[in-house]
C-alpha cells in the first residue's frame, strides 16, 4: 500500500511537470496533452516526444523512436505472461494498454509475494495509482502552464533535460546501461554539432545501445 502511495505521489508530480512542460516548451493544448497521457500513456516517451517535436523530428521518426524507447515493455509483458495464463483475452488486452514501469513493478512484486495472480493486484496499481493520477496531473499541469508567460525566468525550461537525465539514471542498473547512456549522450552531442540536434538524438538512441552491448556484463558472483 505504501509503495502504491509513493507511485501516486510520483505520478501526480511527474504528470503535472509533463503537462507544464508540454505547454511551455511545445505549446500543447490541454486536449493534446491529455490525449497523449490517456492514449499513448507512456511517461518517458511522452516527455521525449516533446523534445522530438521541438527539434523538428518528423512523425514517422517519432514513431520509430517511441517504439524503440518503449520496447522495454516486451520484457515486462513476457515476465507477466505466466501470471496471466488462463485469463480472458479482453482482460489481457486491456492489461497490456495499462502496462507501465510502475504497474509492472508493483504487480509482479505482489504476485510473487502471494504466489498467484490477483486481479486487484494488477488493476489497482495500473489504474488507481498510475492512470488516474497521471491524467489528472497532466491536465492540471497543462492548464497551469498556459498561464506562465516566461517559463525561462522561472527555470521551468530545465525540467525537460533534467527529467530525461533523471529517468535515464533510473534505468541504469549496471555498467552496460551506464555505457549505453554515456555513449548516447556523447554521440548525441557530437552528431548534433556535426549535423543537427534531431540527428544527434536519433544517433545517440540507436548507436548508444550498441556501445553498451560491447561492454562485458558483470559476472554473477
Amino acid at each position, binding site marked *: 500500500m505504501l509503495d502504491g502511495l509513493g507511485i501516486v505521489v510520483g505520478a501526480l508530480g*511527474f504528470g503535472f511537470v509533463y503537462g507544464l512542460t508540454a505547454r511551455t516548451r511545445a505549446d500543447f493544448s490541454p*486536449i*493534446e496533452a491529455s*490525449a*497523449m497521457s490517456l*492514449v*499513448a500513456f507512456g511517461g*518517458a*516517451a*511522452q516527455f*521525449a*516526444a516533446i*523534445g522530438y517535436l521541438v527539434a523538428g523530428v518528423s*512523425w514517422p521518426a517519432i*514513431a520509430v523512436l*517511441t*517504439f524503440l*524507447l*518503449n*520496447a*522495454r*515493455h*516486451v*520484457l515486462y*509483458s*513476457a515476465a507477466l*505472461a505466466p501470471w*496471466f495464463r488462463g485469463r480472458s*483475452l479482453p482482460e*489481457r*488486452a486491456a492489461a*497490456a494498454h495499462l*502496462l507501465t514501469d510502475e504497474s509492472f513493478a508493483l504487480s509482479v512484486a505482489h504476485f510473487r509475494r502471494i504466489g498467484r495472480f490477483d486481479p486487484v493486484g494488477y488493476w489497482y496499481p495500473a489504474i488507481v495509482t498510475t492512470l488516474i493520477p497521471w491524467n489528472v496531473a497532466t491536465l492540471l499541469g497543462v492548464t497551469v502552464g498556459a498561464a506562465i508567460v516566461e517559463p525561462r525566468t522561472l*527555470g521551468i*525550461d*530545465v*525540467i525537460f533535460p533534467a*527529467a*530525461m*537525465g*533523471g*529517468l*535515464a*539514471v533510473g534505468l541504469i542498473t549496471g555498467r552496460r*546501461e551506464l555505457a*549505453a*547512456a*554515456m555513449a*548516447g*549522450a556523447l554521440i548525441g*552531442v557530437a552528431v548534433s*554539432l556535426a549535423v543537427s*540536434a534531431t540527428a*544527434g*538524438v536519433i*544517433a*545517440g538512441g540507436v548507436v*548508444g*545501445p550498441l556501445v*553498451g552491448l560491447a561492454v562485458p556484463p558483470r559476472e554473477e558472483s
Partner: protein
Amino acid sequence: MSTDLVPLAFVMWAVTYPSRAVGLLAPALERLPRRALEYLRLVGPAILAALAAVNTVIATGEDGRASIALGVSWIAVVVSIGLVYWRRSLLLGLVAAVAIAAAGRAVGLD
C-alpha cells in the same frame, strides 16, 4: 483549442501497444533472441541520456547551426542528475534543477 497532435498520440499508442501486448497476448512470441532483448533494454538509458545532453548543452543559432552552450542550465541538470542518483527521487531532482536555474538567472547567470 488545437487538436493537431491528437493523431500523434494514436501513432505513439500504435507503436507502443505491440510491445506491451506481445507477451500477454502471444506468449509464444515472448522469446526474442537474447541479443535483441539486450539491445532493447539499453535503448532507454541511451535515448534518454541523448535527449538530456542535447537539450542541455546544444544551442541552435538563427542560422540553424548548432554550438555548445554551457550555462546555468547545465549546472542545474548535472546537479539534478546527481541528486536523483543519490536520493532516488526524480521529483527532488527536478525541484532542485528549477531552483538552481531560477536562482542563477536571477543573479545574472545564463
